[in-house]
């Protein structure tokens, strides 16, 4: 399909390849979230997950509903919220550091039996 901004001679990459990218990023992010010891690195992985979802939204919007813009709007929301959430998370980590003197997530395991 072609639109006003892209000429027909630019062949598009198939949708499925973009989806592969998005899924791959999601699982890399999940792997990082579950296995890293440094809390800051876990935050970076969360950002990766969120970004993968963003790619997913934009791809579906562009390929399936070119006339509408809801996907892009949702993506902007997610970016904003991710930024805010990162700020809150850093604040929590700073508080945590004050208690445990470490940013190793395995050291903060007191809420248990």
């Amino acid at each position, binding site marked *: 399909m072609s639109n006003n901004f892209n000429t027909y001679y630019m062949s598009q990459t198939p949708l499925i390849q973009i989806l592969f990218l998005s899924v791959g990023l999601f699982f890399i992010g999940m792997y990082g*979230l*579950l*296995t890293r010891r440094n809390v800051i690195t876990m935050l970076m992985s969360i950002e990766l997950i969120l970004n993968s979802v963003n790619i997913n939204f934009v791809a579906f919007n562009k390929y399936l509903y070119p006339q509408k813009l809801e996907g892009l709007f949702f993506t902007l929301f997610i970016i904003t919220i991710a930024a805010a959430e990162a700020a809150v998370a850093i604040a929590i980590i700073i508080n945590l550091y004050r208690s445990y003197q470490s940013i190793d*997530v*395995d050291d*903060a*395991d*007191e809420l*248990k*039996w």
Partner: protein
Amino acid sequence: MNEYYVALIPGLPLASFVLLGIFGRKYLKEFSGTIGTLALLVSCVLSLIVAKSYFFDSEKINGAYQSIVLMNHTWLSFTPTISIKIGAMIDHISVMMLVVVTFVSLMVHIFSLEYMKGEERFATYYAFLGLFTFSMLGLVLSSNIFQIYMFWELVGVSSFLLIGYYYEKPSAVAASKKAFIVTRFADLGFLIGILILSFHAETLDFKLLIAKLTDLNSPEYLSITTGSFLGISALTWGLCLIFMGGAGKSAMFPLHIWLPDAMEGPTPVSALIHAATMVVAGVFLVARLFPLFSNTEAALHLVGYVGIVSSMFAAIIACTQTDIKRVLAFSTMSQIGYMMFSLSMAKYGGENGLGYLASMFHLFTHAFFKSLMFLGAGVIIHFVHNNDMSAMGGLRKYLPVTNITFLIGCLAISGIPPFAGFFSKEEILTACSHENKTMYWLALITSGVTAFYMFRLYFSIFWNKEAHVHGDHHHHEAGWAMKLPLILLAICSIGAGLVPFGQFVTSDGLVLPTHVDLGFSALPVTLAVIGIAIAWMLYKNENSKSSAIAAGLGGVYTAIYKKFYIDELYIFVTKKIVFNLIGRPAAWIDTNIINGTVNLTASVTASVSETIKGIQSGRLQQYLLYFFGGVATLALIFIYLIK
């Protein structure tokens, strides 16, 4: 009149119990005795008023005294027909018992003012006496069979508390436990009997129960007599089991073992409970249900045989006992045996009811002379500080009033005219001679033996050798508080026989005239005089004839002295059979199986909990793993399973 008086009669002792129980020990102390005595005095006066009003002023239907139910309040209702009510029934025997119980209790209260003076738990003693009097009065006023069972148990509890009054003595504690356990065991039979009768008659109320089960055509009578268990109809079973309860409370053979031991309690308590009132509760129960017993030959025979056996058994044992209170205890058992078999010699109605009249008359007179003798024994024990006959002798010089009153009591129980016992025993023997000659001869022999052992007791205490009397204290006999009850009861022991009992208390309420037949009475009186003469020869002056006879009888004498080894038999059965075969296995099951199951449940729960608590490890990444796992599972469910 009457509802308020009748409610006050047991209500005042109850109020005395509550008041003295709560405030007596700390605040009222010495004044408690006066409070208890005053409450009983008012109760006694009210009973006499009620008695006068019932016997002289109440309405008679066809010349028969009616039983009046004064109040009947439903307390607990099982079915529309069977419900436990709380009520008061006035009829001839309950009015007679009201007078007897309140009068004897009043005498005991007055006596205890001096006897128990100086006791630390003086107020508690009077509180318990109040509780006992309340329970006994409630028992005689009960209008239904379950209410009588409740008061029956209350009387048992009061007896337990009073026998174990000196709780620091291990023998007293053991005696009170024995009394309670034996009577409680008997009450098992009583309860089963109540359930049988009330199930078939569909009522608990005495009047209705008797009316339904004596009417030979009523459906209830048919249902209770058709069908039998082991060849005996349900009615007979019920009545025999109820009699088992009565036999336990009245210390009939073989449930008599508690009565001699119950003498561990203070002597005024023995006078009240174990002589005049509680032990006659069994007789009262049979008298209450007499129309039912009179229609059931087998139950009546059981009552008769148990009565005569107990009577003879106790009389023989009493000849060898040396503790004066034990002699009096066995004497009580013997006299209650008389009352029981006298009931069995009667049938309901008219001339046939002579045995019933005689039994109630003997209950009336026995209460007076037996409590007289127990209170006299109290004075003697207070003086000598020892219960045993060997420490006494020649006391007539020191205790003149007690000497005379005790002599009056002994003459009364031996059946010498014109004392009270003569009239009541004569009626019993007359009723016996009409019905069953064998029983008559056995009763006659027993009354001779009674005269013998009572005068053995009298002579050993007041004559015989000179006792070693303590030099310093107690050179005086007793104060007025201990002498007055003795004198009053002695007057009653003489006068009670002259009451024309046949005018008042008979099996069906109609007047049954009684008369003294001199020719008939010659034989019992002669036997009694012979008994007294033998006792005179053996015990009046100090000699060794009695010990020579005892040595001559050898093993037989020892067996009788040990009360025919019945206690040893019971202990053997309890320890070797019941404890080993039933107690120990039951305890093993309880400790190992039941405790084990509960402990197992707990330990299984604990170990499961230990295992699964690892899920909450506090590690963030593990929680995230569970979170992602859950989301994946939900996604699979929503995409593939729920379309």
